[in-house]
């Protein structure tokens, strides 16, 4: 088995009395499109920043493409591109100058590198903004610049930390198309996002972090199969009562959504509905999605 793209070994981080990470063991396979999910404050960004060397873990070890992030930091940073969550200003320099400077930090220069920077500008629709100072860019353009900056050194692993937060639909789609293209080219991509449907459509493997702990780490299909619930929508007239009322999880315009244990049959539900005098016009079984799995694993007290 090849070395994982990123490996966390008992990684813990403490801020004062708070343990932001409580001993994470995780291996992100090479070539995967990996989703790292969790509520705000769950520890996702701390984990990503520790991988990038921006946070020094209290204990534990992290390797990127087999290189220790602390001891062999030059090699690990050459292997890793990070698109930070926060938009960043560098008011003294233009887009192209920033890309050239970032290339220089990695020891890259010359005709081939300039050609790669031109390609990045083109692919991220920044060519006409190449000579504009970054403080004159819109939020979406800054986001694309951050992606270009993370790619100047051809990293093998790319981290996208909430890349579509506050981004309009068109840009979001073009970013995901670009990310898919990079992944198809062999790059390992690690994504954190609040849009679970995005993680569901893009990622092939997913880890969920809750309160600094790894709750689950699995193949996406396997994870979806783990949902303890299924949802059934009944369209009709009447009013649920008794045990049936307790199973309503959402009231719809012309009906109700019920949450049932995954293994429960529909017969009991239909019998209960008829017993309440509900006239059923339509019925739909909703397949479990990532959001349901995520919420069931991270609910308070879970």
């Amino acid at each position: 088995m090849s070395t994982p793209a990123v490996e966390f070994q008992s990684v813990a981080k403490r801020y004062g009395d708070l343990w932001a990470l409580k001993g994470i063991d995780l291996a992100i396979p090479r070539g995967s499109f990996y989703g790292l999910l969790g509520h705000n404050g769950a520890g996702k960004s701390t984990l990503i920043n520790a991988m990038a060397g921006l946070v020094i873990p209290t204990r534990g070890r992290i390797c990127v493409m087999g290189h220790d992030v602390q001891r062999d930091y030059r090699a690990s940073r050459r292997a890793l591109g990070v698109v930070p969550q926060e938009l960043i200003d560098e008011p003294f320099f233009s887009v192209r100058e920033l890309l050239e400077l970032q290339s220089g930090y990695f020891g890259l220069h010359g005709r081939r590198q300039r050609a790669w920077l031109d390609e990045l500008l083109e692919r991220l629709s920044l060519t006409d903004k190449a000579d504009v100072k970054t403080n004159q860019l819109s939020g979406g353009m800054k986001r694309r610049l951050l992606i270009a900056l993370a790619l100047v050194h051809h990293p093998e692993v790319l981290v996208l930390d909430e890349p579509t937060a506050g981004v309009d639909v068109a840009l979001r789609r073009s970013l995901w198309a670009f990310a898919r293209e990079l992944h198809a080219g062999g790059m390992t991509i690690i994504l954190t996002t609040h849009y679970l449907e995005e993680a569901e459509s893009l990622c092939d493997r997913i880890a969920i972090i809750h309160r600094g702990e790894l709750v689950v780490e699995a193949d996406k299909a396997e994870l979806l199969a783990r949902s303890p619930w299924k949802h059934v929508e009944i369209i009709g007239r009447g009013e649920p009562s008794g045990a049936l009322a307790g199973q309503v999880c959402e009231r719809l315009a012309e009906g109700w959504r019920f949450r049932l244990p995954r293994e429960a049959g529909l017969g009991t539900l239909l019998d209960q509905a008829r017993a309440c005098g509900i006239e059923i016009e339509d019925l739909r079984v909703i397949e479990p999605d990532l959001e349901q799995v995520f919420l069931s694993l991270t609910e308070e007290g879970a």
Partner: protein
Amino acid sequence: MNWRGLWTLFIKENRRFLSVAVQTLFAPVVTTLLYLLVFGQLLDEESVAFRGVDYAHFLVPGLAMMALMQNAFANSSSSLIQSKMHGNIVFLLLAPLSPLEIYLAFLGSAVLRGLLVGLMVFLVGWLGYGMSWQAPGWILLFAVLSGAVMGGLGIMAGILSEKYDHLAAFQNFIVVPLTFLSGVFYSIHQLPPVWQQASHFNPFFYMVDGSRYGFFQQSDVPLGVSLGVTLGFLALVSAINLWLLVKGVKIRH
């Protein structure tokens, strides 16, 4: 060593201050020349200078050193705090640059800006007062070392400051008083004994005194002492900075 990375950061820092040259080069020169105008022309006090040295001639090297020191400090400190405030320091931290490479690049740029400002002050003084120099090698050595010490202090202040206010406190309560009281405007031999003693605890005094030796081959303390203290202080500042950068204090959380 990642020489290309170090060079890139050095060039970036230089381009940063050159892009706002009115603020970073010319304004400090004008301010310093106002001191020269007021103190050099209006006071013309020979009694506070070296024996046999005209006060304006005594003052010009001191003012050039003061401008050099304050601007070397301002360069590295303001660049770091701005990078932290704007968040763009992350680009540097994600790059394969060692703490030493980052330190040397910031230090080099601080020295360069200090030398440019100091040189401009000196040139105006030279044109206005017909300055001469006895040992230019010592002048250059003390100018570079002093720029490095102050650039290093600027890096320390930039790393430790969490907001502009912290940096302003460092600058206004430590750097400005210590440079003003470092013998820029007077020879410490003219001070009361208590203040003479106190001046010996000010490391900036040795930098100014050492550079004056290069002009007049006279100094308040022996040249070797000034050189030793300046080198020792540079070593101390560098050691602290490298420790801060290795540990990631206030930068890597």
